[in-house]
């Protein structure tokens, strides 16, 4: 069983992003946060870092598991956009010492079911960075609503550099030649 993790230092910003379960009116939801569940806030945070192309460095991730919040994969993957993020994450990282063919093969293999935890661990680094970004900018805003609107205004997604496709070809073609 795999899961995603939210760290205790992000508990406050997580709470701010989530409306209390009892608020049924839209007005009340805007006072507390637009999301209805932790998993939705997690997806939101991870997507910010994905847009920025800046996950938390692996070495800077907290080592302590104390007071962490975990969300089971079966629950998390039910969130709107969670599955797309979890798949997309496989294709973000490219290694300098790796050929394009090897890189593609590795990325494709990382989609396998038994690699889910690795992908979610990678996603945790993005979510961590996203929460950090929100936490740092929260002080400048008067409400969660302003924070989210500012985030939309300031964060633009980074387009990745085009891959050199010259060396990529179908081996079947060689067999036909």
């Amino acid at each position, binding site marked *: 069983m795999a899961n995603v993790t939210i760290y205790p230092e992000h508990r406050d910003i997580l709470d701010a992003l989530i409306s209390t379960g009892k608020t049924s009116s839209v007005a009340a939801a805007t006072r507390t946060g637009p999301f209805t569940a932790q998993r939705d806030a997690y997806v939101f945070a991870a997507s910010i870092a994905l847009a920025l192309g800046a996950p938390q460095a692996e070495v800077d991730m907290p080592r302590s598991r104390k007071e962490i919040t975990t969300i089971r994969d079966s629950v998390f993957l039910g969130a709107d956009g969670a599955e797309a993020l979890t*798949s997309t994450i496989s294709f973000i990282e490219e290694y300098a010492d790796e050929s394009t063919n090897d890189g593609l093969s590795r990325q494709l293999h990382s*989609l396998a079911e038994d690699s889910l935890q690795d992908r979610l661990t990678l996603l945790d680094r993005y979510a961590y960075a996203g929460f950090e970004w929100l936490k740092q900018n929260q002080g400048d805003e008067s409400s969660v609503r302003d924070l989210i609107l500012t985030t939309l205004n300031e964060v633009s997604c980074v387009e990745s550099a085009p891959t050199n496709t010259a060396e990529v070809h179908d081996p079947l073609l060689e067999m036909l030649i």
Partner: protein
Amino acid sequence: MKFVSLDLHNWRSFHGHNRVDFATEEDRPVTLLLGPNGSGKTALLNAFTWALYGKFTEGFDYHDHLVNIEAIAADSNAQASVELVFLHESDEFRVKRTTDARRQASEGGTELVVTKNGVRATEDDVHRILPPALKDLFFFPAESFSTASVLKGESPGDGTSFDIGTAIRAMLSGDVYENAIADLREAMNSNALKPPMNYRDETVETARRAYEQALAELHASDERRESLPALTAQARESALKAKKEAERYNPDEMRKWENRYKELDHSVGEAEQIVSRVNSAYTELARRSHMHFAQCAVATAIARLDLAETAGLMPPRIHQHVLAKTLAKQTCLLCGEHLTEAGVARVSNLYARVADAEVAIRGVEIRTRLKQHLALLANELSSLREEVTELATLLGVDIPDASSDMKILASVIRTCLDVADRVLTQARREFEDFVAASDIDMPADGQNPVEIAMVKQALVDQLESELEKIDDLIVELKGRAQRQFADYEKKSGKTREYARKTRAISILLESMEYFEEARKGLERFGREDFEKAINTTYSDLVNKEFNIVVGSDFSIRVLVAGTTDRLPLSQSEKVLLLIAFLGAIARLAPHYEKIARLGDQLRDTGGVETSQKHGFPVVLDAPTSPLDDEYEIEVVSALPHLLPQVIVPVSAKSVDVWARISKHVGAAYVMELTSKNATNRTVRWNGKDFTYSTQDDDVAPARTRITRIS
């Protein structure tokens, strides 16, 4: 029947024991109780109704605070009791009701002891003489109830909700006929008179159902006729109050004010709706923003998967197991051809580049989903753009162009939020300022009292029209029911058992007819008795030529004698008409009680002659309070001629008027109020001063003591 005494023990503000001995002499029928405001005049009236019926008069709000507060402070289990002694014929009745501090608020938290000539009797023995239906007539809360309304109305029925028909039937024990009719109706509907379960003839069944339907309609109309007079009286009272309220306002100004009120209220509602819509758009945007942020990464992933396809990693065109076995056997698994050395090299090369088949399939699936994800983003964006464009148009904000992404939409939504908040604040301020404006006289709830009065009057008109037509309707329904029954009876003659049952129903119907006629007769003769009684009573009170006509619904019109013209009445004459109305019932009461006791309803009702010498007592709580001085004198002077016994709690400030009839006052009391908020005041009666209000800082809450002064 005459009241002898009333003993109060810790009842409301009457701390400790207080007693009133009522005047019983024929030429001095009035018992006067003089008290300042707050001394408990209405509480005294309610001591009668509580003791006799366990109920209170309209407007008395202290149902669960009956035990004196000072007594409770001294003893948390303190008791309160009221004992009423009265004489009827030659019998002495004692009715004592008790409660205590713990039980006073609970339903049924009282104990009642009734004795007749010292022997235990029941509540029913008392209610046969003083039926509960007459509570509001014998114990009349004039001050809080309706004297003021009567002054505005056309007749004593206006502004009151008396149901005289019910009162008369109650006095005559006429409800036995109603009960008999109800029992017969139940018997007719019993299963015993229904067709046997194993017998089903469609023709007979149809006839039976048609008859039962007709009977049900008749029954419903009968019940409606019973309830209509009371409903109409209540509606009249409510309409009169609404009319009085409406008269405080100028209808034209009111309409203008109401239109403006609705307009501003509507603006607030609209602004709230827009704020809510903008907030919804923001929430939707926030919830979908992850798609905006992730779109580049998703596009990259799709490009990588496309590249993987170019690299032959997907889709799985040759399964790696086929290649593995081909290499192991050195023979092509597909065509059976032996592999050459070059062939082995090429297949080995291929094997190294072909991905795991399951992973390849997954790659294809994921690429499809990611493409769908991007398509969904386009759809969501388009629908958000549409909503934001609509909101921006409504609020006069720059409209986003057709290619706007979420970043631009967020910026427009932020502006919309600011503008919508400002619009709402402005609308609320305008509405509040308008409501708070003191230069317009208007009701606080924003409802137009003129319109309310019109609606209530329309209801009265509707009920009166229904009342006018209901007798004809019932005759028609009765005819229909009889025809349907005849048809049913005829068709049911096919079997003996069936015919026997319809015959039984026929007998029950005849019996019911008899009781209905008896009830109607009682009501008609009762109305005649009441008309005679009210004419006699009013003539004892007013020196004027008149003719009072009582309608079939017990409505009253006062006509100039010998004509059909309405007689204009002064304030005092209107109040005296109301008092005559109560007096007529009280004068009829002893006659009707005797008729009911002897079972002579059908023989003697309609021939009753009443006079001031015979009648039950009435308790009138402050009957003259809304009157001007000159009219007050007329009413007070007439009261000794009403009944053999009249009990009147009144304000001590009117004492001079009451002093004019002192020779008719058999007993006078002062209800002395002591409290820290009272002022020291005295009242002069028969040349002597008596304290009726005392200031005392140590007495809280207020305390009342009843003292006889003559």
